């Protein structure tokens, strides 16, 4: 099932309780791949599953607080902003995530349908 807003689609992807803590989950939807994280404080974060450096899969990185370390070359990326931390540069796309009645929804944009 999907909830629709004017500019974006909220897609149900998982049940909150079943997500492991600090281990990323790979989510694919319409050609987009997202890394979904449940942090140790219970918050959910979702970012594009490719490091801007050399396309490392971020879902497999080590998670520390609000950061994930890319498993390929250890780029440190802030989950809330998608910003690659100094001394490296770059950023990844972030996705909005929400929980409703125990279900996790990620907001995908329509532009991705093309």
């Amino acid at each position, binding site marked *: 099932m999907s909830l629709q807003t004017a500019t974006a689609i909220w897609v149900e992807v998982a049940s909150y309780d079943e997500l492991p803590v600090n*281990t990323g989950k790979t989510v*694919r939807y319409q050609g987009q791949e997202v890394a979904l994280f449940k942090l140790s404080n219970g918050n959910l974060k979702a970012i594009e599953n490719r490091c801007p450096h050399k396309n490392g899969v971020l879902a497999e990185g080590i998670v*520390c607080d609000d950061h994930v370390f890319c498993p390929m070359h*250890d780029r*440190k990326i802030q989950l809330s902003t998608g910003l690659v931390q100094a001394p490296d540069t770059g950023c990844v796309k972030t996705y909005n995530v929400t929980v409703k009645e125990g279900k996790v929804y990620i907001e995908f944009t329509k532009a991705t349908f093309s």
Partner: protein
Amino acid sequence: MVQMKKLVLIGNGMAGVNTVEHILKLAPNKFDITIFGTEPHPNYNRILLSYVLSGDSSVNDIVINSYEWYESNGITLYTDHTVTEINTEQQTVTSNQGVCVAYDQLIIATGSNPFMLPLPGADKEGVMAYRTIQDCEKMIEASKTLKKAIVIGGGLLGLEAARGFLNLGMKVDVVHICGSIMERQLDPTASSMLREALEAQGMNFLLEKQSAEIIGNEHVTGLKFKDGTKADGDLIVMAVGIRPNVELAKRAGIEVNPGIVVDDYLRTNIPNVYAVGECAQHRGIAYGLVAPLYEQGAVLAKHITEVETAPYEGSILYTKLKVSGVDVFSGGQFMESPGTKAIRIHDEFAGIYKKVLIKENKIIGAVLFGDTSDGTRLMQMIRNQTDISGYDKTALLIETGGNTNDSSNVAEMTDDSIICGCNGVSKGTICSAIKTQGLSTVEEVKNCTTASRSCGGCKPLVSDLLAYTLGDQYDKTAVKESMCGCTTLSRDEILEQIREKELLHIREVMNVLEWKTAEGCSKCRPALNYYLAMINPTEYVDDSTSRFVNERMHANIQKDGTYSVIPRIYGGVTNPAELKRIAEVAEKFNIPTVKFTGGQRLDLLGVKKEDLTQVWEALDMPSGYAYGKALRTVKTCVGQDYCRFGTADSMGMGIRMEKRFERLNTPAKVKMAVSGCPRNCAESGIKDLGVVAIDGGWELYAGGNGGVKIRAGDLLATVKTEDEVIEYTEAYLQYYRETAIYLERTSDWVKRVGIQPIRDVILDAEKRIGLCDRMNTVLSVTTDPWKEAIDNEKIQKDLYEVIEIK
């Protein structure tokens, strides 16, 4: 918009590119820059070539400016282009490949050429110089077939080249015209200490020999001397000095004598043409060491960008010999002369010699042998002409670790003083990085500015700069290698606290030891996970979120996000049924690539994450741990069952070892091998533990490595039985597990700790039994991770599931 000025640099080496770096910092976007270089490489650190030759670094490690650097700074780079013409009237340069570029300002940094002695026979094959990456590659290639080298020249370069040949497994004679080596940097005492140290490493010196003729037919076979004697050798390297490379400048009508003559602002006699580095001659001197080149570059950059600068007035020379196992430093005036007084320390037991020369209450020079840690500090005092009348003279040579004098010393240095000679990083650059980037450790300064990245000699000065810039905020204890940026504690301190306070969880360690971050980082989390399990093998519960991807997933992630699967094939011995099964799995799961590994097993590459557990189930074989900081394989040769030379059952021994140590977690990966005779077909000499059968027993070699830093293993022990092989290996691996730093390979560990102390522990029966006991405990609690995942739905869902939304 003002049109950008066209700046052309001829020579893509350290001096020229360093100048350009300065220019970019001083006046970004003001110049349209073009660089020509003859060598087919970006700018690399020529003074570190000896590390490439010795195998400690790869060519990539010594690159200073990557191709990306040129690109991101908008520089047009022509490598493999030699400039053949400068037209100083039209202001253009032309390369041998026909590229013609106009300039507003031109910097010539063509460096120097090695001087080749014009001996009869110098045109034979096997006569070469030692200056470029290509020379290094040639030498490495030659060492594969040739046995003995002769190096002509007992100076800095010659000795580094000779050491390189020893590392490459060749014999080497060093021919020198004088009676003492490095006589242009060392006094007779230091010189003879150096000679003895190098002789102990296997170098053979032929002193007071004047070369007369190179002998051989097409290829060199030896060298004849004026006194009628000769030396055999199939490769001759001339390292007798360098000559400024000025042909191009001379043709263009620029004044040379013999270097390109420049004034105190590096200007030549032609307007808008400058020269910097080894090709330039300033006040009669052409410098051949790196620090002066950087000093010249700093002045030239300021002059070109019209920033006010003091003139360049010459450099005081200093040098360090880069030969492993020998520390030599020389700076300023090193020989006594009328009016000088010296302070000397000569400890013949420790092999340390230090001499400081003083004239009119100022240090004017120093020679250090065996311990060069004072070098950078003394050099600063020489440069600053520090008045030492108030100093306790003998204290000049005593380590002043916590002394505040150090900080006041760096305080007196000007902002453009070079702190890191290898990478040309100035005091100003470091201080501003400390302030603007909020750096607080030497490690952070290294990562941010590259200071101390190469030889590490300037670490004490960087530490002083941190103290000077941060004042009381600087925690000197952080100078010791802290585990990571999350803590100031070192590995040893953390382990001590874990044991003392009986800490059992990563979170607990971080809380009790006051980590700066709540959940650590990718450095400390895996390290703590290892140390906690090492200390408490039976109680500690492994934290999969603190494992690197490969160890968490029990498969090797590939660059496209797929995985490779390598099942255990004990001792590299398999059978038809197993091979059929592997083939069927590869077909069933459409595995794109199947490859034999270097460790005698099969690699299934390109497996999707969501298929991993099914592939393992279908294989029905244990994990090969090819992804882990763990025992990888035990490589074996065929041994006595089939081989006519074999003296023992190497396959059987290898299988037994692999079965004993499979699943063992170690600080870094461990590779082993068993060879059935000293022909060593399983390459036991380059393994973390290599076993070689000899008549009536086995030899165990430790700390070998065939990877990034090739290192031959050291003989650890000679034992009689297979049981003893297992017993000594248990003790050795457990001692490694307990004392190594996480991620430290045995090759580095053995180098750091020394083979003798390790032998002492392993050969001590009581200690050995203790180690074996602890190893037994560790091995008793391991389980096969693939089987665990196959049997556990939660693991499958948490780690391997991919959510696909249609």
